[in-house]
């Protein structure tokens, strides 16, 4: 029997969800295919909750919260998981921070204990703060600075947003992290790491009723915090194309187009996502055929949305073939974008996009770790857990006209940041 205040949904992904009195939202998914269980918590805090002088704090926090709790010594957190045969990790975006363990199913209670300790009374010492600051510095260099084209997202977002915190990357800036104090840490923890700002997902080889009892036992005693107020900054329109040249340590030039688009979950977000697929999803996609096969201008081209809670970016990124100039590549890309606006997509093409999506969604939900993440994202960022099953309908109901209108609205020059990545001249060290 499901608990009284729970709603049970019988869809492709069956789940139960309920709130604890302290505001913690809980989602349970039962699947006995493999004797494993994913335990995850999504906190509704990301880089957009940061102040301009503490950029990177949410992500830095993610590192710190592996340091231990009142009952878990420094370094023990990961040991407990790995010695139980599990894996653990976390990640941070502009909108949320996500922690998870995947454990053998007989270690469910260990996972709940660990996550409740993290939520109840996490603890870090100065040694941990100092070490993780160095680690994050290396992470930043490895991911962005020591990679060709590694700064593409940083350069686009910095120019696309002037007021909204999306202008800075989740990894942040070392100068801000260097000045962060222990008091900042305490305040951030108290403000955002509260049950009423968190969603717990348990997915896998579980008995939902017993799991609920355990969840109540481990998380019930955690005190509700003050309501978390999400930022309400509305970024004004870009107001004209922003063009720039970035010199990087590369041989092949690249062209980057970053278009401002509506928030994840809105009809037009899905429409733009379909446009992206139309351009670069699969070998028969328009830009792949035109730029790679026919004109041989590009060695790679990709288009994708950043699925942000507030209006974000759709990015089209192309790397030129050897001997091809950025200008020629850009012109050919522009022709494909123009075509989206002038000629409606054919029925066959639309059908192709939809079956690709259908297949992909099924693949995404083939593992309990992926299902846990999808459930948490649907609830926290889209406000409707059932979208794990119904989001496909949002795509399927889009028409050729919807796509054409979206292309005319968003894929226009005055709404974009356009960067040329060029090989660094020899005289620029």
């Amino acid at each position, binding site marked *: 029997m499901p608990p009284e205040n729970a709603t049970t949904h019988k869809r492709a992904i069956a789940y139960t969800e309920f709130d604890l009195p302290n505001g913690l939202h809980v989602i349970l998914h039962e699947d006995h295919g*493999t*004797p*494993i269980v994913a335990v995850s918590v999504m906190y509704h805090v990301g880089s957009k909750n940061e102040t301009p002088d503490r950029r990177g704090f949410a992500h830095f926090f993610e590192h710190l919260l592996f340091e231990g709790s009142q009952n878990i010594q420094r370094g023990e957190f*990961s*040991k407990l998981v*790995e*010695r*139980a*045969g*599990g894996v*653990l990790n976390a990640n941070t975006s502009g909108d949320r921070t996500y922690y998870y363990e995947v*454990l*053998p*199913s*007989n270690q469910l*209670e*260990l996972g*709940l*204990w*660990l996550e409740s300790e993290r939520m109840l009374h996490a603890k870090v010492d100065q040694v941990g703060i100092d070490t993780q*600051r*160095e*680690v994050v510095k*290396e992470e930043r*260099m*490895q991911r962005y600075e*020591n*990679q*060709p084209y590694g700064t593409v997202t940083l350069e686009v977002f910095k120019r696309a947003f002037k007021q909204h915190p999306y202008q800075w990357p989740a990894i942040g800036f070392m100068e801000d992290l260097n000045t962060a104090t222990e008091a900042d840490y305490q305040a951030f923890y108290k403000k955002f790491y509260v049950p009423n700002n968190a969603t717990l997902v348990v997915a896998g*080889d579980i*008995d939902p009723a*017993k799991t609920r009892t355990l969840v109540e036992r481990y998380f019930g005693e955690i005190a509700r915090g003050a309501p978390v107020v999400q930022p309400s900054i509305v970024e004004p329109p870009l107001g004209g194309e922003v063009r720039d040249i970035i010199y990087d*340590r*590369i*041989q092949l030039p690249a062209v980057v187009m970053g278009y401002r688009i509506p928030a994840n979950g809105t009809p037009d977000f899905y429409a733009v996502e379909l446009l992206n697929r139309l351009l670069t*999803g*699969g*070998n*028969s996609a328009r830009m*792949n*055929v035109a730029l790679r096969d026919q004109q*041989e201008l590009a*060695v790679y081209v990709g288009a994708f949305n950043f699925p942000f809670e507030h209006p974000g970016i759709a990015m089209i990124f192309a*790397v030129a*073939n050897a001997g091809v100039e950025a200008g020629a590549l850009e012109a050919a890309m522009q022709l494909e974008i123009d075509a989206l606006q002038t000629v409606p997509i054919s029925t066959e093409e639309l059908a*192709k996009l939809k*079956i*690709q999506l*259908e*297949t*992909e969604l*099924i*693949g995404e*939900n083939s*593992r*309990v770790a992926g299902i846990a993440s999808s459930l948490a994202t649907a609830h926290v960022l889209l406000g409707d857990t059932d979208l794990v099953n119904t989001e496909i309908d949002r795509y399927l109901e889009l028409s050729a006209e919807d796509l054409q209108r979206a292309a005319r609205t968003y894929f226009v020059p005055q709404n974009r940041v356009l960067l040329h990545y060029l090989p*660094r001249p*020899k*005289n620029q*060290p």
Partner: protein
Amino acid sequence: MNHSNRPFYAQAIAASLVAGLLVPSSMNAQLDRSRPPAPGPAPVVQLAEHSLTELPNGMRLIVVEDHKLPMVSVQVRFDVPPIVQGDKTGFVDMMGELLTTGTPTRTKALIDERIDALGASLYAGNEGVYASVLKKNLDPLLDILADVVRNPSFPEEELEKAKLRARSAVQQRQEDPDSIAEAVGRVVTFGSHHPYGEVATERSINSITRSSVWAYHRYFFRPENAYLVFVGDVSEKEAKDLAKQYFGKWKPDHSLVSTDEYGRTEVEGMGVLSKLEKASVPHAERRVFVVDRPGAAQSVIRISFPLNLHPKDIRSMQAQVMNTLLGGGVFNARLMQNLREKRGFTYGCYSSLEVDRFNSSFVVTTSVRTAVTDSAVNEILNEMARMRYEPVTAEELELAKQFMMGSFGRSLEDPRTVARFVLNTHLNELPAEHYRTYLTRLEAITAQQVMDAANAFLYPDQANILVVGDLERMEDERSLLSNLSDRGIIQLDENGAPWKEVLSPVMDRTAEQVLDAYVKAVGGTEKLAALRHLYIERTAVRGVDTLVTKEWYAPDQLRTKLTMNGAVEEEVIHDGNRVFFANTEVSGELTDAGYDDVALRTPPVPEAKYAKVLERMTLLGSTEIAGRPAYKVQFQTVSGLGFAQYFDAETGLKLRRTDELLYNGRKYDQVISYADWKPLGGVLFPHEIRERGGLAGKVVRHITYTEVNKAMPVTHFEVNIPEVPDLPVPPEMLPPPENLVPSDE
């Protein structure tokens, strides 16, 4: 055995999964948060059933049914040995890429269009093809899949397109530090004539012909060489019917193969088949390689060696436990804990043991900030060595084993895992029960076996140490990367070939003009003439403090002194006519090349006089030094002393000097770099001097004290000449102070 640490997965003996959760009896009592909760009873891990049958043409069919999702994956996998590709390196991968670019009945556009319209994905490579699709579209997918596997036509036009893409990919790789480390790492691990050590270059890609691609396909893609694997929402019967329909009539073609006069297999279009004769084993000595990336944000470190270890060797699993504990994926591995959690050197450091039926290898990779490069290398080598002589703790062993058991259990969530197990069992000639007994065999591994495996398969003293980073700045001043190998640092290019300087001809100026530009850049002849005296102290920290002082009086009197921890180690005096030298062991007058060397560097800006005193100077060409455009000028003195200097093509300033030194039969390529130019008495001098590759190894000196245009004390340059040594010895031929000699370890 400690019962709280019992394996959480019991071996698969029961037919049903234990899904029940142990509810602690203390359920209603006060929650004890101080300790981790006890686990419930271990669930049973079950390997899914599979079927393995053979078609009349020799093709083997593997089916793993899993009806949870309406998806099916199909793989055609050929048993392909690695071959030496030589001057056509890249053609094997290109064959794979070209499989989907045309058949007699389908163009590339048609294939792409059809695959996408089915919502399918299809990947082709030199070992076969992998595809996945919704169950409802399985039949049409197989129609295309069989066509590209059996009948690729390798259109000439598509080959040319693929070559351009491949050349672009080479250019991309050459600028990506991780890709450089991967490619060059394979070269230094296996050697450049080993199938695993060959790296495609623009040149080798241009040499690829359609006939070799065609021949590779015809020779290796044969039914009796193939496994057809179905996994997912398909019944065994359906799979068999599809296999018969699409591959049943496929006959092998042996017409291309012949044997040459030496008994070697020759394939028409591809030539003599050069398979791997013998697995590479660790090199006799440790070597240090650097691919220089001036200005790089980080050093990418890759430490590796090849191993002769077959997957069916029972020590493979012991070695894998050892590797897990050292750096193989767990966060609590020694390398991760040491380099990341203890020292904050890196975001991550991992080791991997690639157990491969043709040639195994061991690799450690990490990215660290440039300044700690050699400290990181030393820590990695230390951790490798420690595995060999120090038994692992029970706690570490337990963690590694439990983690591996957990990974095994999690991997079974993907139904393709069982198919992979079946394939591995056949390709690697494993015992039939290999995977069924995996957990119990793993559980039984002891600390002693782990140490034995470390001794058998870890070679810190014979490792290839590769660093992709800023050569100039990667060495810590206390521990020297170059000391890790008797051969010093071997510099390679982005493709793993020995590094060669690339010089472009310069037509628009002479060596004299480059020198003039330099003199002008530091202040010009007038400012130089106003300089009558200069005293400079340069300090370096190298475990002990060293101080170099240089005192000059116009026109050419000079005293230089090297002091270590306050004690004078070396002194050179030029009284205007003769040069005297003294160190802790020898002293005397220097003549010939020794005199030339000192006389040449006596003036504060020696280059101002080069035109008068040198035998020859030649502008060799232009190049790039630390990201700056530079002219390279070669100088030669009357006595035969030769050296080169590099000047910034834009600022005119001196960037670098290189000398070839010989000592004890070993050649040293000494590089001195100049930076941080600031004025002294109106003339610019480098306030930072970096020296590397010489007898003293890495030294960085900064100006810490100066005096300008003071009067000379009386008798300052009167020298009591000690006895004259038998032979005049130039300073670079003299033994260096003992603590500067590279150690032999």
